[in-house]
């Protein structure tokens, strides 16, 4: 006898951004075959920069479509669950915000890559496919409400990035970057998975709602499982003591990849951790807060102090990104709606200033080499005044000086921490912030107060690179002065972050 037919009402709107990015990745991969460098029955061979341009355009369309669907979901304010009977993927405002940040980060990275890949002679079509695939993994992870989809999203985001970090496969430091990221990343996935297994074993559920309902803070196995999950995410966001891979990987990877992963992986991992922390385990703030307090302080201290002695700008930005991870963790310690919305706003702000800083490095890459040593920036204000000016803007924004989006982000975080009673934590964070001004301003000092070196920098800039820098300058200044938008241009990033978090409780 046949079983009765099962009626499943699937809501495909919930997976639209994920599916669009995934399908886009496949389409880009196919397109590259048709744009072959040899003559095929359909196409004449075209130059490598055109191939890169066409594939970049396809990736741009894909990402714009994905961001648009997410924006629609955000504006409608509803919650779409893919399969209501077994919720795994849920597109709500919170997920839509994460998808937006990740999508814009990927879009800027695509634009940065179009010329850079040709410059470095690593102009292969897989690059865009891997980038889109990893973006779809991030989108899956931020909209996941089940351990299975969290894990799947995490791996779909990580595995393509392992490849991207080693994309310049003839270069030893790119190999090394990929190797280190792969080993630490998969080791971290192992720990994360064991934590998930323990959570599943002690609660009997894989969905976050079920885990929360059955969570028993007195059971050491449950708490250990949660601890291992936090360790797994700490690896991904490069929080001390799991940060050692970050500088090596960021320095060795092609700069466009570094720009991509430094903002999007961090955003995706923190947003998912927020869902875990806020939606999953609202009942155990006691020990968890202490652990996060220690993590935040250690991360701020190590990141900001070690960044001081770096002579490579990419490496300095890597340590600075560890420091920023520490600042973001303060929002988790505060564990209030203000803290959580400050985390989201910080990720949004970090997107513009960090992609901008890496964008300047990309725009200077010349004859197959990155201009990433601090001496390369000597006298840049005389040879490339425009680039020097925008680099200075991104540096003061990363340092958190008023008038930039970096200041607004830090202010939100600190205000939330003080309101939650963590005054000492705020004091330490402000001290870390003061240290950071020293190493950020070293770059402008070299650009404006030193004589230019013998090798003159690349002249001219690709249109897409200019577009990225323009977008980032706009983001840093507009959201720095008007974080709540203005009447003519109602881009109210602060209330977006607040609306997203409102749903978590």
């Amino acid at each position, binding site marked *: 006898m046949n079983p009765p037919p099962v009626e499943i009402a699937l809501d495909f709107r919930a997976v639209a951004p994920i599916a669009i990015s995934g399908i886009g990745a496949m389409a880009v991969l196919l397109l590259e075959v048709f744009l072959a460098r040899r003559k095929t029955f359909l196409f004449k061979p075209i130059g490598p920069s055109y191939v890169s341009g066409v594939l970049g355009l396809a990736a741009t369309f894909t990402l714009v479509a994905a961001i648009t669907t997410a924006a629609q979901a955000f504006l409608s304010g509803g919650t779409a669950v893919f399969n209501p009977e077994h919720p795994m993927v849920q597109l709500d405002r919170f997920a839509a915000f994460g998808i937006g940040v990740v999508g814009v980060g990927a879009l800027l990275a695509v634009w940065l890559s179009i010329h850079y890949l040709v410059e470095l002679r690593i102009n292969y079509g897989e690059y865009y496919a891997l980038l889109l695939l990893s973006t779809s993994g991030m989108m899956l992870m931020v909209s996941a409400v089940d*351990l*299975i989809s969290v*894990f*799947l999203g995490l*791996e779909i985001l990580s*595995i393509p990035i*392992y*490849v991207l970090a*080693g994309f310049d*496969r*003839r270069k*030893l*430091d790119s*190999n*090394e*970057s*990929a*190797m*280190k990221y*792969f*080993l630490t990343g*998969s*080791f971290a*996935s*192992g*720990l994360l*998975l*064991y934590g*998930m*297994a*323990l959570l*599943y*074993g002690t609660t*009997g*559920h*894989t*969905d976050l709602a079920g885990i929360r309902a059955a969570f028993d803070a007195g059971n050491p196995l449950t708490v250990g499982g949660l601890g291992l999950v936090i360790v797994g995410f700490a690896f991904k966001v490069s929080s001390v003591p799991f940060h050692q891979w970050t*500088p*090596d990987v960021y*320095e*060795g990877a092609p700069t466009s990849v570094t720009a991509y992963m430094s903002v999007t992986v961090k955003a995706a991992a923190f947003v998912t951790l927020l869902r875990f922390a806020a939606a999953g385990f609202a009942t155990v703030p006691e020990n968890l807060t202490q652990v996060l307090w220690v993590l935040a302080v250690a991360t701020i201290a190590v990141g900001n102090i070690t960044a001081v*002695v770096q002579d490579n700008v990419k490496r300095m930005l890597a340590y600075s990104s560890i420091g920023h991870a520490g600042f973001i963790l303060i929002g988790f310690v505060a564990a209030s709606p203000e803290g959580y919305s400050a985390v989201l706003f910080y990720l949004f702000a970090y997107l513009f200033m960090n992609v901008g800083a890496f964008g300047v490095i990309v725009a200077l890459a010349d004859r197959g080499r990155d201009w990433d040593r601090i001496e390369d920036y000597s006298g840049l204000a005389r040879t490339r005044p425009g680039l020097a000016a925008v680099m200075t803007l991104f540096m003061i924004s990363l340092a958190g000086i008023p008038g930039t989006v970096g200041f607004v982000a830090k202010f939100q975080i600190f205000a939330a921490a003080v309101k939650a009673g963590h005054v000492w934590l705020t004091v330490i964070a402000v001290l870390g912030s003061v240290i950071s001004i020293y190493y950020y301003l070293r770059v402008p000092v070299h650009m404006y107060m030193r004589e230019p070196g013998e090798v003159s920098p690349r002249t001219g800039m690709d249109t897409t690179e200019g577009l990225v820098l323009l977008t980032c300058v706009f983001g840093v200044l507009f959201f720095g002065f008007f974080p709540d938008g203005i009447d003519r241009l109602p881009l109210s990033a602060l209330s977006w972050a607040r609306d997203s978090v409102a749903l978590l409780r």
Partner: protein
Amino acid sequence: MIPIEHVIGLSAILFTVGTLGALTRRNLIVILMSIELMLNAVNLAFVGFARAWGDLGGQIMVLMVITVAAAEVAVGLGIVIAMFRNRDSVNIEDVSLLKW
């Protein structure tokens, strides 16, 4: 029927062996194998828990983990080969271009 404690005990032992291997060994291939061991220990734990709870979620998770582990090891070996071509070595001590 094997009690759940035995299954989880074995899984914990395997996981510890894998973790120690990944942390102490110096050959990239052996490290990869150790990480695989960690993932398989996780699989064992999930299957054990799934049987104990009579819930299918854990077993579905295992299928996902197996699939992902296959993809991961393919990428990992690819990276090892790319490095071996440039350096003629699979020893982790030689991976030391980028420091501090």
